[in-house]
């Protein structure tokens, strides 16, 4: 049972942070369908940073520090990459869906191109590295506490340091967008940019800000995803997690609390697929055996989150509170 909750958390955290990323872009009025692509690019740049840092023995010894540095490097490059989207959507007034799709195709092409050029292979793995004492170490868990009560174990046993950083960022950014002046201005640009402009807000700058924060968070989430879920292997794909995050954002009605709930729900559904396919390897809780006895192939569990998204979208459409101006290029002269 604890195992299941731990796994759920591991899957929910990237979804949480990427869905928040989507929220920031859409609240400022830009549809960020490129979340998937930005995640891929972030995962590539994070993995590349890890590779470069590990050339230095200091960083091999201080594994958690390296991990955090990689996460923020991924965030930086994610933000940089998202400027392409902002430029096409804001300056070129291009169709945001097409621009986002272009980024979604560009990110895997770019990262695969460089992985192939730099490493002569199709994926960039992050195997454990021997440190100065000779023990092999990978990023792994920051905290290991076997002797805690079950509830605390979910958070404080086999926990990644990234989990706490991500939750911290989530709270911080949620407070920022709701409690500060800039946050309010950013949200107003997604609802009625002309009205916002009439009180002296620079709409284009706000939209750039929203999309760049979105890109940074998505890049962060991208490396978080491959480091915690996909064994740190950057292979130019995140299995549609970006789109799942987008659906969670819609499920959460473009609000942080809803997004948190959605991320937990879909994290659970997503982890079912993995847990069920790892049954022969991982034997821990009784629920896991129960799934095995049902004898359904993993494809069934893979399907569940996607079908759930469709159902959720159908039911959520009635009470949907999308930002009114999202997806519409800002035109000063329009009323």
């Amino acid at each position, binding site marked *: 049972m604890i195992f299941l909750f731990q796994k759920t958390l591991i899957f929910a955290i990237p979804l949480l942070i990427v869905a928040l990323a989507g929220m920031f872009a859409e609240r400022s009025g830009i549809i960020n*369908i490129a979340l998937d692509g930005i995640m891929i690019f972030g995962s590539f740049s994070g993995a590349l940073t890890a590779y470069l840092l590990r050339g230095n023995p200091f960083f091999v010894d201080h594994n958690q520090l390296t991990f955090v540095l990689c996460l923020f490097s991924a965030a930086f490059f994610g933000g940089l990459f998202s400027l*392409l989207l902002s430029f*096409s959507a804001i300056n*070129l*007034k*291009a*169709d945001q*869906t*097409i*621009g986002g*799709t*272009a*980024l979604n*195709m*560009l990110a*895997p*092409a*770019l990262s*695969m*191109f460089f992985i*192939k*050029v730099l490493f002569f292979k199709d994926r960039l793995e992050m195997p454990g590295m021997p440190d100065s004492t000779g023990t092999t170490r990978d990023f792994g868990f920051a905290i290991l506490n076997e002797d805690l009560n079950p509830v605390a174990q979910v958070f404080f046993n086999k926990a990644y340091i990234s989990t706490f950083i991500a939750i911290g960022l989530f709270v911080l950014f949620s407070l920022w967008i709701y409690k500060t002046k800039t946050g309010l201005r950013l949200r107003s640009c997604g609802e009625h940019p002309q009205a916002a402009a009439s009180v002296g807000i620079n709409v284009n700058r706000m939209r750039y800000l929203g999309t760049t924060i979105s890109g940074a968070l998505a890049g962060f989430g991208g490396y978080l995803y491959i480091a915690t879920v996909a064994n740190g292997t950057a292979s130019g*794909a995140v*299995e*549609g997690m970006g*789109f799942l995050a*987008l*659906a969670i954002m*819609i499920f959460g009605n473009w609000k942080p609390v809803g997004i948190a709930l959605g991320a937990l729900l879909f994290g659970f559904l997503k982890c079912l697929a993995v847990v069920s396919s790892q049954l022969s390897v991982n034997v821990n809780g009784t629920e896991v055996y129960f799934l095995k006895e049902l004898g359904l*192939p993993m*494809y*069934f569990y*893979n*399907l569940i989150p*996607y*079908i759930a*998204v*469709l159902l959720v*979208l*159908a039911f959520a*459409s*009635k009470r949907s509170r999308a930002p009114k101006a999202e997806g519409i290029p800002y035109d*000063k*002269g329009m009323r």
Partner: protein
Amino acid sequence: MTSAKERRNEKSKTPFLRRDGVRSVIASLICILGGLVVGLIVLVILAVFNENIPVGEAFRGVFTLLSGPFSAGNLNDALFQAGNMFFQATPLIMTGLSVALAFKTGLFNIGAPGQYLMGAMGSLLVALSIPSTVVPAWIIWILALLTGIILGALWGCIPGFFKAKFNVNEVIVCIMTNWIAANIVSWVFFAADDLFINYDETKVNFIRKTATNGISTWTLGLDKVFGGSYMDISIFLACIIAVALYILINKTTFGYELRACGFNKNASRYAGMNEKRNIVLSMAIAGALAACGAAFWCLNGAQDFKWDTYQTLPADGFNGIPAALLASNNPIGVIFSAIFLKYLGVGGSNMAALTSFNEYVSPLIVAVIIYFAGASKLIKDILARRKVTVENTKDTRYAPEPVPSADPPKIEMLSAEEDRPPQEPAEERRDEE
């Protein structure tokens, strides 16, 4: 108001460069050029920073890429690569048509990969489960094609239904249906196992070739002409479908309704059209087209379909988007843009084989092309402004007498104000904003 004849007259009198179609083609060419330039820049940067690669290699790489099959070396290899290029372009034409049709109705069909997979599954299930000793092979071929098309159409209905009924963004639904299709296809073949999986050649990741059941598309000797490649007649069928689709969209009431729905959903409802039905129908046809492309590919007879596809989606599905965008959603244009994209693909793999670069350059260039294509409206607007100035001077110099035409006021204005370009007021207004 204007009869068809008058409109044709008007069209023939519109100066060549001011025609909408010509402008679209120029905009697409600019996008392609932009993509190639970015690709060249990436290669040059790479060559500069990598001491093992001389800078000249970058230009040689782009040249190889641009030569497509012609960079193969000898004639026989070039013909072989060209034949395969045409064969591989066939599913891409179909997915491009699928995306283009949906665009005409104002829908973004990014669900083509899922529809493609459903079509592949449908056609393979039929083609491999009916023994050709019992039923003539050509009947099975047609049945398999139809099954694929029907499955694809049904699969395409899902996003259309969600859009029409719940007004959910079709992009999200399309993506979800893609992954659902990928898992369903894997599951079906996983469950059916022995019947379809290729154990004979110990390629357990692939489905048996349909040729093992005696089913393959007619080649009419084309495969021999093209150096023993996979070339068959399916590309001609795809071209016929493209022409039919052009007629459907541009010359029929139904096509008019679809386009009206794409321009303005509310206005088309106000005009008495059933816009919800049109959305679902448009997506269904789009799904059928993508699935048809998959069926063409599978029924060739010599292709290995990877069944355990739950983690990957077919690239041809996604590449339908650039094919449609480059062609400005014109079905006839899709034929050329799809072949061009595959041409780049062949060039890319030749580049990987012959130079120090890898084959991922061509998807990179394609992605940049779509990035620019997103802004093609802007490019077209800029073109429109420039061309008017050019035509303006031309009109006054070579055609001093006003020609009676369908829109005389425009021409009079153009010829009267010789010194001042007619778009100036528009620009002034823009400045005021």
